[in-house]
């Protein structure tokens, strides 16, 4: 039994009903209207047929050949976030390693220059103390007087050496012992820097090499 209704549901509501939208289908008043309305029932039927036809539209072959797979150069698997992060860190780490090596090397070469100077200094002071001791043989250690000495480096003036003031808190060691201790404590930071620099350089180079994605 069909009939003409004075008012009709909104067309969008009919479309929702045709697509079996839950809220539209569960609307019994709407369902009753569609079933009995000469205007609305064909709309719903046609919309249903339309959906069926759309779902059958065929695939379309591309009009030109497509590249089906990325070229090998682009095809290397992308590393995970952490690995990529490490790989990116490798370059600045290498630069830092080079920096450390340079600073360490400069420090050590400066140190070696200093040692050479001190060694000459030591040789001079030992020579002069022997000279001072010679006249007063068997006498007690006394402050060394200022003395001008001709050395192979030229004439230099040695200040009076009061060992008690040079190393106030400790019992006076020999001049050679003072220089040895001095060299040890100043040498190590430069050496450590140099070693750390080489280490950093090596590790970052290995990281960069091993984490760089390669095709194939």
């Amino acid at each position, binding site marked *: 039994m069909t009939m003409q209704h004075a008012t009709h549901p909104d*067309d*969008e509501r*009919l*479309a*929702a009903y*045709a*697509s079996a*939208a839950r809220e539209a289908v569960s609307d019994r008043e709407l369902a009753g209207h569609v079933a009995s309305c000469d205007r609305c029932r064909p*709309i719903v039927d*046609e*919309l249903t*047929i*339309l*959906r*069926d*036809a*759309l*779902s*059958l*539209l*065929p*695939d*379309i*072959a*591309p*009009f*030109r050949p*497509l*590249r*089906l*797979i*990325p070229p090998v150069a*682009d*095809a290397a*698997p*992308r590393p995970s976030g952490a690995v990529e992060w490490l790989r990116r860190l490798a370059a600045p780490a290498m630069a830092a390693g080079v920096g450390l090596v340079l600073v360490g090397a400069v420090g050590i070469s400066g140190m070696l220059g200093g040692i050479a100077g001190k060694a000459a200094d030591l040789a001079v002071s030992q020579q002069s103390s022997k000279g001072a001791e010679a006249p007063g043989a068997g006498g007690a250690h006394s402050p060394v007087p200022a003395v001008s000495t001709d050395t192979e480096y030229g004439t230099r003036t040695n200040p009076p050496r009061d060992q008690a003031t040079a190393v106030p808190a400790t019992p006076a060691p020999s001049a050679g012992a003072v220089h040895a201790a001095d060299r040890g404590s100043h040498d190590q930071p430069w050496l450590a820097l140099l070693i750390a620099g080489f280490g950093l350089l090596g590790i970052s180079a290995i990281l960069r090499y091993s984490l760089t994605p390669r095709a194939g």
Partner: protein
Amino acid sequence: MPVPDPARPGSRTAPLPDEEAVVARACRGDRGAFTQLMEHYQSACFGLAWRLLGDPDLAADAAQDAFVHAYDAIAKYRGGLFRSWLLRITANASYDILRRAQRRPTTALPDAEEGEAELPDQGAPDPEAEAGRAELYRHLDAALRLLPHDQRAAVVLCDVYGMDYGEVATATQSALGTVKSRIHRGRLRLRELMAEHRELFLNEARLDR
């Protein structure tokens, strides 16, 4: 302007007989298996992109981009219909191209009114049994091209390619309610556009049932 050829009149790409195994190999990095899948589904991808973008060149670019995205993402593929997965990627790639084109107004998208000339030939009139159906598909595609773009995209993704409302909303970056409304208005407009072919339309529908 080159005209796309139909894959086979009235046909849709069915899954490969051993698709699960091929997909599994592709997931493990087998390039041959991946190529086989893309070759098999290229008409599905191109068809979707063409229906969304309305231009064969842009559609080919979108399908190409989709293959690259699929290659990058296939290791993370977690089952389901492979065709649907690939079509979602193609829809996103098409939308990327659409957004780029809209940002550069000089790269005009084809005017829907001019679409008739570029319609794919959905099948030669022979054999006779397929002629009516092929004609119906031609008219349907022509009518789709006359829809406003947002309605066309919603109808194409939902009705032609079977995506649910949520998937359409994601692909088109729209709200769910907006998507539903676009689909319903798009269908109503399509029905009006198909009015002059109503007989053909209803005949084909009767043959289907």
